[in-house]
């Protein structure tokens, strides 16, 4: 039984659904960020698997670009979380219902 790309696609779908569920379930901003990272990783896995199946190197190149964007996003997001925590002493998104400094 050989492992072809559809197995990786199915696994990525499962990981993506887990990440989406975590994003909707949790109220901690840090855990929500981790869920977004999990979803990005699941999509990266589909890129690499499809790139091998189609014989194209562009899948792996796209993964590198996604990683760069994710790194920038994590940097900004964690800076925002730390800034909010300094002001509000909480990381729960329920406390941030109004856009007031």
């Amino acid at each position, binding site marked *: 039984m050989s492992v072809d790309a559809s*197995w990786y696609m199915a696994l990525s779908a499962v990981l993506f659904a887990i990440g989406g569920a975590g994003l909707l379930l*949790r109220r901690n901003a*840090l*855990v929500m960020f981790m869920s977004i990272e*999990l979803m990005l990783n699941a999509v990266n896995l589909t890129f*690499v698997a499809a790139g091998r199946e*189609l*014989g194209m190197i562009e899948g792996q190149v796209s993964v*590198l670009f996604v990683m760069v964007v994710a790194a920038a996003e994590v940097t900004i997001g964690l800076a925002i979380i*730390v800034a909010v925590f300094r002001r509000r002493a909480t990381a729960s998104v329920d406390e941030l219902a109004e856009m007031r400094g």
Partner: protein
Amino acid sequence: MNIEFFVFALFALVAIGGGLVMVTARNPVYSAMGLLLTMFSIAVFYVLNDAHFVAAVQVLIYAGAVMTLFLFVIMLIGVDRSVEREEVIPFQRPIVIVLSVALLGMVLLAGQAAWITGRGVFSGGEINGTIETISDELFGTWMIPFLSTMFLLTIAAVGTITLAYFASQPRGAAEEGSNAESQTSDSAVRGAE
């Protein structure tokens, strides 16, 4: 039952278990550890898919740098603080579980309809994800997008410094209300100039 299938099944279980631990753990440190497990498993899948350089980058950047940053912020904010409150939206958990299962089912169904099948439908051939192959593509065809990521990272660095600087300036004035706070930050800007 070859070795590739065995490795895939083992690390698929590890990845899914890590994801579930990340979602369900009360302590954010356990969530980070679950995500770390999933990221290592995905690096193993990259190796199975002949993407050796991407696997190395995954371990270095994600499991190394990004997770260290996450753990640092978790430790900075405090791990013993329980910020999970009761549900604000009624029936949130059942709705989320139903929606996630529906999303998974729809993605799998759509994948069966439009699944890529067979090797070499478009260009074909084996690929190997060495540094040489990837850099040929990256510094040839994708030179302009690669350079624009430089701007993206610069913007991210400047934004982080700005957030850290201006969030730390009005400290102590937070009790006096937002009006005094903005004045303090304005005078801080003038003082910096």
